[in-house]
């Protein structure tokens, strides 16, 4: 098979990955909506640990669980057991998707004989893979329930869908990118961005859950998106998870910026030139630094923390799409 064949195969696996993620999303959605366990999430503190092993053994004593008082009307004909099965299908589909997803990148690398993150399309594909891997680790360590994969899958499918809008054919690198720093700087940026994406998802869930509490305490009527909140984990657990993902991502992002500065010194003669991409990377760094500090400023800061995390992801997105497509930058490698 020639390099062209590899590139075509890479495109096929890319489509397969999106389809499998969509399947996973539907599986998780069914589990989220109809499993009895999910409906108890608000009350249960321990269930998350049990769910870890579900993928392997399916040893969840689903039928032993007592019927909660506020069990949602389940008149769709989907039993809790079927919902759990759908969740397992979702997990299998997600892992299969991740394997195919990784193959997309590997085949691209094979087709062009370079690191598979030389343009905007490849960058997005790679960061989505990081997000899925991080999410899998989070679920495997029992930090959140499997069914919450619904929201991660939603984010990944949306972002991969956006990636198709900036699809770029597999081509060799332009001379400016032809350096070993692409392995270091861009990979660090991809890992950090993938972690930030995961953190963004949990930050949004945290906000939904928190506002749900506020609305129910006030006795107000629930409206979307707070209607999904009863099945989300504890507010504090979502807050801690968001925090830990960002704590992990921030040093990697810092490293990515530093590595970028070293590379910029090699390629463009200066380590920092206020190029729009650099500016927005700096803005993202500052916003996430503010997020990390927000927890140290008492209750007031904690209130804003998830909003700052969401703002940070907005900055990252602008740096990815806005700067690449609409602003003149030395980092314009979008290839579109």
């Amino acid at each position, binding site marked *: 098979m020639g390099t062209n064949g590899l590139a075509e195969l890479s495109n096929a696996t890319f489509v397969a990955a999106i389809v499998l993620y969509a399947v996973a999303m539907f599986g998780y959605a069914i589990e989220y909506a109809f499993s009895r366990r999910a409906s108890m999430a608000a009350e249960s503190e321990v269930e998350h640990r049990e769910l870890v092993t579900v993928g392997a053994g399916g040893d969840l004593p689903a039928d032993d669980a007592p019927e909660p008082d506020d069990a949602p009307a389940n008149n769709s004909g989907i039993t809790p057991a079927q919902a759990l099965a759908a969740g397992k299908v979702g997990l299998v589909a997600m892992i299969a998707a991740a394997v195919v997803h990784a193959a997309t990148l590997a085949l691209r690398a094979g087709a062009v004989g370079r690191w598979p993150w030389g343009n905007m399309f490849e960058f997005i594909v790679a960061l989505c893979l990081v997000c899925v891997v991080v999410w899998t680790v989070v679920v495997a360590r029992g930090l959140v329930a499997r069914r919450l994969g619904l929201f991660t899958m939603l984010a990944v499918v949306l972002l991969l869908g956006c990636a198709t809008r900036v699809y770029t054919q597999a081509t*060799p690198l*332009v*001379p400016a990118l032809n350096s070993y720093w692409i392995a270091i700087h861009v990979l660090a940026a991809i890992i950090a961005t993938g972690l930030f994406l995961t953190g963004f998802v949990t930050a949004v869930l945290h906000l939904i859950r928190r506002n749900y509490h506020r609305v129910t305490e006030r006795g107000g009527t629930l409206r979307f998106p707070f209607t999904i909140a009863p099945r989300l984990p504890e507010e504090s657990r979502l807050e801690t998870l968001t925090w830990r993902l960002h*704590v992990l991502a921030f040093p990697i992002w810092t490293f990515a910026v530093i590595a970028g500065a070293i590379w910029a010194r090699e*390629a463009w*003669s200066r380590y920092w030139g*206020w190029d*729009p991409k650099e500016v927005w990377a700096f803005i993202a760094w500052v916003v996430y630094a*503010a997020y990390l500090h927000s927890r140290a*400023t008492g209750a007031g800061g904690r209130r804003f923390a998830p909003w700052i995390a969401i703002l940070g992801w907005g900055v990252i997105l602008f740096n990815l799409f806005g700067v690449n497509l609409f602003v003149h930058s030395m980092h314009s490698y979008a290839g579109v």
Partner: protein
Amino acid sequence: MSTTATPRRSVTSILRRWWRQLTSMRTALVLLLFLAIGAIPGSLLPQRNLSADKVSQYYADNPSLAPIVDRLWGFDVYSSPWFAAIYLLLFTSLVGCLVPRLRDHIRALRRQPPDAPSRMSLLPMHRELPSGLEAKKVADVLRRNRFRVAVREKPDDATTISAEKGFLRDSGNLLFHFSLLALLAAMAFGALYGWHGNRILVAGEDGEFCDSLQQYDEYGLGPNKDATDLPPFCLRLDHFTDDYLPSGQPTKYIASVRYGTDGAAPTTPYDLQVNHPLELSGASVFLLGHGYAPVITYQDRYGDKQTTVAPFLPDEGTQTSSGAAVFPDANINPKTHTADKDSEIAFQGMFIPAVPDQPPYTQSTSPLPKNPALMLTAYKGDTGLDSGQPHSVYSIDQKQVSSGALKVVDMKKKMLKLHQWSTLDDGTKVKFSGLREYATLEIRDDPGETFVLASAVLILLGLLPALLVRRRRVWVRLGDTGELGGLARTEYDGFGEEFDRLGEAIAATPTREPDKIGSD
């Protein structure tokens, strides 16, 4: 009634209050967000330090808005007073916050871990220990786990052991923040003592360049750097190698140069590439781009020939370039040597490296010079070159054209292939007599670089423990019975496991009464 001291005290109290306000975490947080917001306009508006041309373009496009933007330093955001105000306030806030924390941290490092609380069962982590444990052995276990340990004998015959761990968190935190200050200082140092220049280096011996300020097309000199401080070196471009995909995407740029240091002639060869700068002592040479310099010969009405090598600026990926060639000394009467101000000649136009067979001819089919052609417009009159006004060498002075001092002269042939002549309406002739390549070089020295890098490394080294290390304390009380208590001083999910592990290890230490072993 009122003394003079009262207003003064109130002034100092106001100042103190302001200072406390400024150095509070909340203010630092707001300043951080201001810094983020303040950085935005610089990425959306054209910046002078990046591209002065784009700023001029903005002035042309928005004639009424541009002066207002300029007055707000919108084209120099990152050197503007208001941007400096934000980060200087932030750093002042940082210093005000850090110095007391540094003092506290040093005090904490030198202090013994505090004594056990009297009711240890109230601690978040608590468990019973077997009685009869030996304080020294317990302390050893804690020390082996890298705790700082203090053993205290109590008057009621009990012994308490206090242990504390995770000081690296605050050390890292302080290192991180102080390194940020160091980074700013290093950047300022580099700006004061550094310099840089841009230069187009045309291939060939006559294109040779030796380092001095006048030789640069554009330069920036730090306030504390003198023009005579520039290191003496010379550069020459032998040839430029470039390669492209059929789509026009470049895959290779190599400028084969020769250099000589300390005033020596340029003889040492070096393949200058993007990502592979030439490092000389006191300066580094970077390849930024390349282009073509057509050689244009003009034969004036007296039959005198003049030749100029005119670098053209590439407009797009295919190396279609625009530029100008000016002959201010054309049509000087060889007998009287009198210059005729109205007979200076200038050409302006485009260079197309691979001209297609069909129109539009301006659409080059390749960035390589497969079928090079020049499309020129001739001008005659006062080129304005002697006026002393600085102006781009890539175009003729439009002011001279609009004032009528420079007039278009028709040419027989608008498009010249290599080695072709064209006759102007006044009978003089112009020839596309050759083609040279050129490399765009940036030469830069930033003595702050190393310190910036060192600060950045320290920032990262400080950041990791600041985020990942957790502070925690454990206490052991050994009396009639034993008990162990623990407190995580920062959020720490895994503390329960560590506490249990420590408890097991302590419980497993040998007791004073051997017969009690195994009773638990």
